[in-house]
């Protein structure tokens, strides 16, 4: 403001003033929308947290504001969830299924993306597009035929069925992401490696994977998120409590007919959301920032 006041009488400088005014407006608008989005996205977790810290009586008490926390918070929901339900088993099952899915996805899509993206062969372009198209078929259409296949393999009611089926969701998209990453690496880099004496496997492991690590991490996060949060397949394929995963398990155990155990449901939701949250917010950000800084520019 002082700068503006000082330069008010000088036409040449008032141009600079209008630029900074422009920028100030852009910032104000940015912050406005950022805050709007933050409220929009943080409201549900806040509500879950508030509800999770109340016992059933407090939740059903019509005279209190459901948005306000009750002090002191109660831990009855946590103890009940951990002690009286199979929630810890769901959690372990989900961890096993997710880790296996991520591993299988990476084992398939990294070499697939490398060959489709870097080794030109007849039909590689069409094939790459085809891989992506398969991703566009929704799981709600596929679960009935998948049910037949899983049944024929004798894997119904086992979380290993999920380990088998989830890669059909993750592999196409992860391959597609990584084709893009691999293609963005200058071709001189593989030529230099070729002259240095690397074969294709060495080239992949010593050059391409380290250089495309940000892409690999993006793909890993995607595979992780999909297999952690997938709902339709476990709902369809698994019936026993000791085989269930978090998504389907929470709903089937904590909703009995029309009785919703809100406190425990919200606690379960928060616990289920914690691992992805931790991975997104801390580990991966840190990891990607450290790597992208030096990785892609020659």
């Amino acid at each position: 403001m002082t700068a503006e006041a000082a330069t008010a009488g000088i036409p040449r400088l008032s141009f600079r003033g209008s630029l900074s005014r422009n920028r100030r407006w852009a910032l104000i608008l940015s912050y406005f929308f950022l805050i709007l989005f933050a409220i929009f996205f943080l409201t549900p977790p806040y509500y879950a947290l508030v509800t999770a810290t109340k016992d059933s009586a407090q939740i059903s008490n019509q005279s209190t504001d459901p948005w306000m926390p009750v002090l002191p918070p109660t831990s009855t929901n946590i103890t009940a969830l951990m002690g009286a339900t199979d929630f810890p088993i769901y959690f372990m099952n989900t961890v096993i299924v997710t880790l296996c899915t991520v591993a299988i996805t990476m084992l398939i899509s990294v070499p697939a993306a490398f060959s489709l993206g870097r080794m030109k062969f007849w039909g590689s372009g069409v094939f790459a597009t085809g891989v992506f198209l398969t991703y566009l078929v929704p799981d709600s259409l596929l679960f009935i035929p998948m049910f037949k296949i899983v049944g024929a393999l004798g894997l119904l009611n086992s979380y290993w069925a999920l380990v088998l089926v989830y890669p059909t969701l993750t592999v196409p998209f992860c391959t597609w992401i990584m084709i893009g990453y691999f293609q963005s690496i200058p071709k001189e880099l593989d030529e230099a490696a070729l002259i240095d004496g690397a074969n294709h496997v060495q080239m992949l492991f010593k050059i391409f994977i380290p250089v495309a690590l940000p892409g690999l991490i993006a793909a890993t996060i995607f595979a992780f998120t999909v297999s952690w949060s997938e709902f339709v397949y476990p709902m369809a394929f698994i019936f026993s409590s000791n085989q269930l995963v978090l998504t389907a398990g929470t709903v089937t155990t904590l909703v009995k007919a029309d009785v919703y155990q809100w406190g425990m449901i919200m606690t379960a939701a928060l616990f289920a959301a914690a691992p992805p949250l931790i991975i997104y917010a801390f580990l991966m950000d840190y990891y990607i920032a450290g790597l992208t800084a030096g990785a892609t520019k020659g």
Partner: protein
Amino acid sequence: MAQVALRNVVKKFDRTEAVRGINLDIEDKEFIVLVGPSGCGKSTTLRMIAGLEETTSGEIYIGDALVNDVPPKDRDIAMVFQNYALYPHMTVYENMSFGLRLKKFPKAEIKSRVENAARILGITELLDRRPRQLSGGQRQRVAMGRAIVRNPKVFLFDEPLSNLDAKLRVQMRTEIKKVHQTVKTTTVYVTHDQVEAMTLADRVVVMNAGTIEQIDAPNDLYHNPKTRFVAGFIGSPAMNFLTCRLAEASGALSVRLNDGLSFPVPASRTARYRPYANRELLFGLRPEHITEARAGGAPGHAEFEVPVDVVEPMGMETLVYFIVNGFEVCARVNPAAAPNAGETARLSADLNQMHLIDPKNDLVI
């Protein structure tokens, strides 16, 4: 250390012919520069020697071995790329030692080779850095270091200085020449920059449209171009070309440019040019051979007067442009004697340096 030979090498991409049957013999320890305009096939030729492109037909020999079907890693070559192609996730030391590590060299040997190459290039203190922490010139040095440590039979350079700014380019040019004098390895160097070609090469290969126009030492290329293309490509500003008629009168030849302007052919050239008497030819003379007229003149020099069109002072010399027969002609004159635009200047052409070109086949007579 080895010689390289190309025999009738052809490269076709789909239907376009990038390289049209070239033959080239490169001596052991020789520094050869392939130069030409973009799309002339020079890079493709280099990549075929490297094994990064397959030949469509013809043979390539490194040493005495036919290498057509030998993969790049077994050709015992090292290549420096235009964009350096350093591995971004490795330190300078790791970049330089990558090839040796793949070949399972002993650690001590790798260390001594890398340190030796780093010393030659003056990058010893950079060995722990990553490529992104280096300037363009330093990256270029590392790329050269990566080539040197492998102690290959042949060095291949693909426009290695094109990404550097003008000042650094000149500096690195000298550096490359020094390295070659130290390491003495057969070198094939591709560039579109004729100054780089002239300054670095033992012999320059001028390429155009997939064929070799001329192979010669830099000075021979400059003084005795064999084709119109070479005459026009080598030298800056480029050689002036004018249509002319080789007139014969009472046994003496003269180059007749138009009714008002004609130059006598020096006696030393008469025999060579006589068969072309009374033909329409192309007269070529470099700007540096058209200077201001000096008192007394010199044998073989012809003076003439022209109205000056444009004057470009360069400091050490001044370029003077004028029009003859509708063609723009450039002369390089002493700044002290430079005319002004619009004035009539008296200039002198050194006809001992003239060239005549047969327009039927574009060959220099």
